[in-house]
């Protein structure tokens, strides 16, 4: 198992290098904004542009620029400096990461706590009003764009612009270390909004998996042996049905930790997603590279974690 994990980690490192190379190539090859021009404004002479390129190191050969970046990351853990704010990219990431982690973890808790019971109940009560309500609600949740849902939530429940002012609104986020209670209340609406789509997707998937699993021979055997329905469903059925979802959850969590840009934007949460978006707007390559690598890291780590969890949930994987 340890060798397997080690292999995955090494492969993950290779992937990170490839991702960084791809990001670099995309940034310079595709028609995007020129950071020197953005910094200079449209009145700058070619000489001024040249000065700015020199100052930012943009006039060096692309291979040299990439090598500098790679060697700085590998040997000095230095992601460089933002073209825009001149702040170290590492500190920008560290500053934004807690908000994104807070947002993601809270949303996960909600979607797991809601999606699993909904999926199970809908599967075990197929065709009843509970099932119809669950699947219909899930369809609504999947269809509603997060940005729109966020706006609706704010217009309904935010304490500054809402019709029923129940929760703190956009821009109210504070770090947990500053004020835990305000941290919690400010994230209630974003958590619910971010979790809604995932809840819907996972509830539907789980329902489908459960229906399939509950018709398996071993479930029939379990019932024949006299096990209670609750034990059959929750112990034998759910365990098998939830396994494929763990893979999906791993990817989703990794992606969300890389930034939930729409939710962060609509609720004014200074997270990694916003940082990435702003960096793209400003053609701030070092920050783009930093946020992309961070997101890739999360996805890779989540994948490894999923594989380990898989081995726990499914004994066949362990012995394979």
């Amino acid at each position, binding site marked *: 198992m340890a060798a397997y994990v080690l292999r995955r980690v090494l492969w993950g490192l290779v992937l990170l290098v490839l991702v960084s190379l791809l990001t670099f190539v995309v940034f310079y090859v595709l028609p995007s904004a020129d950071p020197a*021009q953005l910094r200079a*404004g*449209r*009145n700058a002479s070619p000489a001024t542009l040249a000065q700015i390129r020199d*100052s930012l190191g943009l006039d060096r050969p692309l291979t040299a620029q990439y090598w500098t970046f790679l060697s700085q990351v590998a040997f000095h853990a230095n992601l460089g400096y933002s073209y825009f704010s001149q702040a170290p990219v590492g500190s920008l990431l560290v500053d934004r990461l807690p908000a994104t982690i807070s947002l993601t973890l809270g949303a996960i808790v909600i979607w797991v706590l809601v999606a699993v019971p909904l999926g199970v109940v809908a599967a075990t009560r197929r065709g009843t009003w509970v099932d119809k309500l669950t699947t219909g609600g899930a369809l609504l949740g999947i269809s509603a764009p997060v940005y729109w849902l966020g706006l609706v939530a704010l217009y309904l429940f935010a304490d500054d612009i809402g019709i029923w002012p129940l929760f703190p609104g*956009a*821009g109210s986020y504070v770090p947990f270390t500053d004020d835990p209670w305000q941290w919690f209340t400010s994230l209630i609406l974003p958590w619910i909004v971010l979790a809604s789509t995932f809840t819907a997707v996972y509830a539907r998937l789980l329902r489908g998996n459960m229906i399939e699993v509950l018709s398996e021979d071993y479930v029939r055997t379990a019932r024949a042996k006299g096990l209670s329905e609750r034990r059959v469903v929750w112990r034998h059925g759910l365990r098998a049905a939830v396994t494929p979802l763990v893979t999906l959850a791993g990817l989703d969590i990794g992606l969300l930790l890389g930034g939930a840009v729409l939710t962060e934007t609509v609720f004014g949460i*200074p997270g990694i997603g916003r940082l990435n978006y702003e960096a793209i707007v400003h053609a701030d390559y070092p920050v783009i590279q930093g946020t992309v690598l961070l997101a890739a890291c999360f996805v890779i780590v989540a994948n490894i974690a999923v594989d380990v969890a898989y081995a726990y949930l499914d004994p066949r994987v362990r012995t394979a």
Partner: protein
Amino acid sequence: MPRPVKRALPLLALCTAVLALGACGSSNNDGGAAATVDNGSGGQRGGTLTLLTSQDIQSLDPGITYGSLDLNLLSSAVRTLYAYAPDNPTDIQPDLAASAPQVSPDGKTLTVRIRSGVKFGPPVNREVTSRDVKYAIERGFNPHVANPYASTYYGDVVGADRATGGPIAGIKTPDNQTIVFELTRPTASLLAQATVLPLSAPVPPEYAKPLDAKSPSTYGNHLVSSGPYMISADRDGDVLGNGYVPGRSLRLVRNPNWSAATDDRPAYLNEVDFRIGGSPTVSGRQVLAGDGLVLGDSPTPALVKKAYQTARDQIFFSPGAGSRYAALNTAIPPFDDANLRKAVSAALDREQMRRIRGGEIVGEIASHFLYPGVLGFEEGGGQDGTGADFLENPQGDRALAERYMRAAGYADGRYTGDETLQIVGLAGAPDSNDAQIVDQTLQDLGFKTQLKLVDVSVMYGRFCGVPRARVHVCPNLGWIRDFADPQTVLNPAFNGNFIFPENNPNWPQLNDPAINRAMARGELTVGDQARADAWGAIDRQVTATGAAIPWLWDRQPNVFSADVRCVPELWNQGHCDFAYTSLK
């Protein structure tokens, strides 16, 4: 002159819904050039103003800053030699300077006396001298700073052509309170006006030099205040992670060393907080419903409509917020033919283009390039226009267009060439709609077209500002003056000497020798009226070429909470001036 992207096209469009307001523009606050503006006197002291903005600060370094929001911020944190009063966007008044600028009779020397008693904020804490202004300007030529307009406005200073950040021979400081600029050409009056830009704000060399030695300079993150406010910083003056967290927040607090006796500005507020990164859709509503808030972004069309209908005293339309035009590439066929250009101008329905953005409320239909509030506007034709027949009818004149087509050799009034015109416009309504109107107009005249809609920075950086991209039409261009002088509007935009292989500001690539010569003379013209006459005439010349189609003189909407007595900076698109604004 055009500012960086976020200043270049600042006016977020207003949806057609706003048009339904019908009588927009008929109120006292109609945003017209004659709109009366609060000058802020008698405000209440104290309180915290919070600015909500989706956009981060571009730079805190006065040697770099060029964006609208950044200028608004810096105008309260540093003191330039001269500045505009918020209600007068035309005439400069002394700020750090003690008196009006003294221009020598030959126009080649500018002398400025500096106030005594102005002190730097922490951690420098000493009196500002003329040497600090000298260093501030010299560092603009330092490649690590690379000021975007230093060579344009300070380029005539003796020795500036060789400057790389060290002393410039033509900037002299005979004593602590005097700075003298010696110029190679008689452009001193233009230079005096250019000192309203933040490059002339004092920078303490003993503090900034080590920071300027870094590439790029990090002085912006250690900005030393000379104005009524400063960015909250640690003991060493580092604002990063203290008063300024990129993409999150910025906090302006009182500069403890500021003395009201040395400043004409009241500085009522105790603090100004920037909350960065929210959605303008939400922030706008928060501003209208909340207390002590102003919106740093252009309000969304829905918000403008809501404010206009329900909270008229919480919205201000700033006149003179720039102009919009469509450029026709004069360097390549088919628009190297002036008659074809005029045909397109004549056919274009500029009224519809404005209607898409919100109608009268968003500005006046433009008929030339100097816009209201810029010196020379009246001389260039004023509201009535230059008399060019192809711009007379805002709804478009198909018959006239066909006459111009025939004059260009197309007997049936339709273009019959084979080439496909490349049109590059802005993605996202209503800009994309405006681009589509131009596209449709061209097709109606028989042109084959290919419309490409891209992001604003891509439009300028990869297409419209790059001659080798061979774009035929750029319909969504915008221009904002740097200060009230007409040269800043017309010179780079239409002077053949400003056609650069990249970052080209002369988008139609107009290279008319007569116009170039007139501009060369205009640059050296001294005196307000003489300059207004000279540049007004140039405006008429440029308009007559049909190289670009002026279609809107912008008004910029700004919104604020009911308890905010916003004193808008007319020179800077009507943002609330922090040094004059107060809470009710």
